[in-house]
């Protein structure tokens, strides 16, 4: 079954037709060719597919596209650009907070929500908030450093 939906994606209103079974991740990658959100676990436990739905981090690999109707979506492509990076992106660059970077878009989006909710988080608050985003390369120390740097730079 098909559904006509209207979303605001990275600030732009879009009308789309999606299948009932289609995930938000498949919609973004297959239909909209936005490749920043990535599939890894397929079970919403690793965070590689994280996008923001109405400002909240969501695992797009298990979130049905049809449920996004009327919502505001932000993907890493809407967070910032190489010439105008989001403070979190700038901090990740400066701290070298990635190795393979497969997890990076999810990390960035979750971290951006964290800093909106808790502008000056403690280390433990960062770890608690970010626990759903996994990095197999083990770039965690640099990621923690980058989030702290971004928190400082927002003052």
């Amino acid at each position, binding site marked *: 079954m098909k559904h006509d939906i209207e979303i605001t994606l990275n600030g732009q209103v879009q009308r789309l037709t999606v299948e009932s079974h289609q995930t938000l991740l498949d919609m973004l990658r297959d239909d909209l060719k936005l490749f920043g959100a990535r599939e890894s676990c397929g079970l919403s436990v690793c965070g590689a597919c994280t996008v923001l739905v109405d400002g909240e981090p969501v695992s797009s690999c298990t979130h049905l596209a049809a449920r996004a109707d009327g919502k505001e979506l932000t993907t890493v492509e809407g967070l910032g650009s190489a010439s105008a990076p989001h403070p979190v992106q700038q901090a990740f660059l400066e701290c070298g907070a990635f190795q393979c970077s497969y997890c990076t878009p999810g990390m*960035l989006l979750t971290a951006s929500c964290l800093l909106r909710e808790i502008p000056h988080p403690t280390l433990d608050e960062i770890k608690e908030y970010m626990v759903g985003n996994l990095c197999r390369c083990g770039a965690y120390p640099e990621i923690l450093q980058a989030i702290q740097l971004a928190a400082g730079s927002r003052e």
Partner: protein
Amino acid sequence: MMDLSIVGTNARRVEGPDKVTGRVDFMDNMELPGMLHGMLLRSRVPHGRIVNIDTSRARRLPGVHAVLCGQDLLGMNIDPFTGPAFKDQAALAIGKVRYVGDPIAAVAAVDRETAEEALELIDVEIEELPAVFDVQAAMAPGAPLLMERMVPAGTFADLIELLGGDDVPATSNAAFQYKLRRGDVDGALARADRVFKDTYSNPATQHGDLETHCTIAKWENSGKLQVWSATQSPSYVRIMLANMFHIPESRVRVMVPYLGGGFGSKLYMKLEPVTTLLAQASGRPVKVRLTRKEEFLTITKHGVTATLTTGVMNDGQIIARDCEIMWDTGAYADIGPRVTHKSGYTSAGPYTIPNVRIDSYSVYTNKPPAGAFRGFGIMQVCWAYESQMDVIAREMGWDPVEFRLKNLYHDGDTHATGTVIYSLGLEQSLRAVADAIKWKSDAPAERNRPSDVPSPLGQGGGASSTAPIESPLRKTGSKIVRGKGVACSMKAMITPSVAAATLHVHSDGSVSVLSSAVDMGQGSDTQLSQIAAETLGVRLEDISVVHPDTDVTPYDLITAGSRTTFHMGNAVRLAAADAQQQLFATAAEVLDAAPEELTAQAGKIWARSAPDRTLTFGQVMFKRFDARAGTLTGHGLFETYHAPTDLQTGQSEMVTAHWLCGATAAEVEIDTETGQLRILDIATAVDVGKAINPFACRQQIAGATLQGTGPALFEEMLHDAGQLINGSFADYKIPSFLDLPDQTTPIIVEHPHKEGPYGAKGIGEAGIFAIAPAIANAIADALGGARVPDLPLTPEKILRAAREANAPESSR
């Protein structure tokens, strides 16, 4: 001393802006016009004879363009069997299935949903056969055999035992045996003051690279095969596809983008054969991408059982060690024999033991294939020998660090393999980590030590304490104890091996480096750029690294085994020097100086005697070609050699051109009521030779340390009668932010390698070798010697070990 301006700096990742914007091209981002999606049907039984596969219903489903099964492959003009050690794995199972998850049939359809539906329409009839699920059962007399014949692949020069080997009937499930004999082990054990015999094991684990395997294949009408793949071994894949289809290597093009992690999982042939076959059968480009569940069924890190018998003297000298090591390589050998072989060399540990006997077996079982994982088996053998080192130290009343230092290998020592060791910064590494966790700062409050003889090796330096400790772990009424542990390890890097690089200087003086090294996250593009810029004398931003494309990037063995900085770094250095020589020949005419007098830095060339008169690289290129035109090409080829090995004793004057090493020290806290563990501090030191990029070195070491905590503390693939029961990231946990040690300290040791580029060594693996035993040794220190011999070190096992150790009838 060379004056370095780019090598040795913390240059930022060249691809950083693409990675922090999510724009970097991973394999699964790629699509081709008319591309189909392939999916695999997998065996549900662990061992069985394929009676019949009926694909007719699947073929009739609209949207399906190709359906293949093993039987179809036999009718084609191809060699369907591949494997880096033995040609034992067909692109799709032929005749038999050997594990739950063994690919039986493949479908290419217009989308994944249609392909999945088609898989449901394939009827498979399999007659189940008796199966073996562990090495013991597989090696028992009369055990069902997985293979009918053993066909050595003869591909890799380092697997000398298999070169020129014959196709022979299989007589057991042992695919491969590595043997080492040095001295008189039995005689030395008989005269040793004490003999220790212990068995340690670790289960199969996952690589867990977040990007799953993905390959696209396309056949041109001209007969040329184009393959894009998330692989760590493009050169190998090209050769093997050429062999498989009986076509020249020049007609196979393999291209590799950035990888979302590898850690050994993306080595050798994985999806390339089946994807290529589906593309051929359908006449369309085909993509195959695995799900996470399939990832668990594709490749694993070997589960291992190791029994060590070690003879020591009262003066602290180890005089003999016998190692029997069983590697569960699963249903197909993959690179299991190389893992068995490479870790075989150093199975007795990094110690000067005069009498050594090593028998390592790579054994087939009806489980997912085990292959390369970061370290090629060193993690598994290190778990055994570094656990036993602390058992011995405790029993003998010796300080674990001093005991190791007394026996450690140094430059100039002859290794158990007969090869003289050089460029090994092991002692510095061990001392550095011991210092980092303040090994000697806390006097042990109580220690079970023989009181009659004074220790020749100092008193224990751990942190056992009965004083109350304030800790977040503390529950009401529980007791928190602390302990410290160390472990160290070394590895012989794969030898012989070949790496080649090409370097183009363009008309404006900018530079392309053509290399088949795969940047899978370790940052090789950046380090190779630094080496090229430094050697050639240009700025970092003048360099662009061309990713593996076998049509243009020359041969490289594999991106694995910590070999890229050393081998490809050298190849790039040689290519840059070659190009510079050509530029200097032209510049010398203009500057009216001898070429030997010239020097270059930051894109300018001048004579040392006249530093005021400079030429840019672009000006030299213009002079050379009399126009804004032309390319100057430098070539670099770096090879390492081994000396012949006696197959009965494993003795060789040169088994490796490069020893890598590392050490780890950990301080832990344990709640003795729950067994819960907290790592307070973990320090890992790696001898990097010379840090090309110190930040990148520390990041590799810290990343390896944290990755290593997973298999140390909780990672384990669990099977029930051959069926994987935790094949997802929901059931199989990998380390998260909340699993981080309180403190992680990566340490760079620089003991230059005499042949390394600027003295650099390989480091990617060395940080992970000793994580598990260092933690286990800290646990034993905290719990009065209680040990967990089988990884992972779960709270349940820690608690059980503590209780057994405290029970009055316990002997150790």
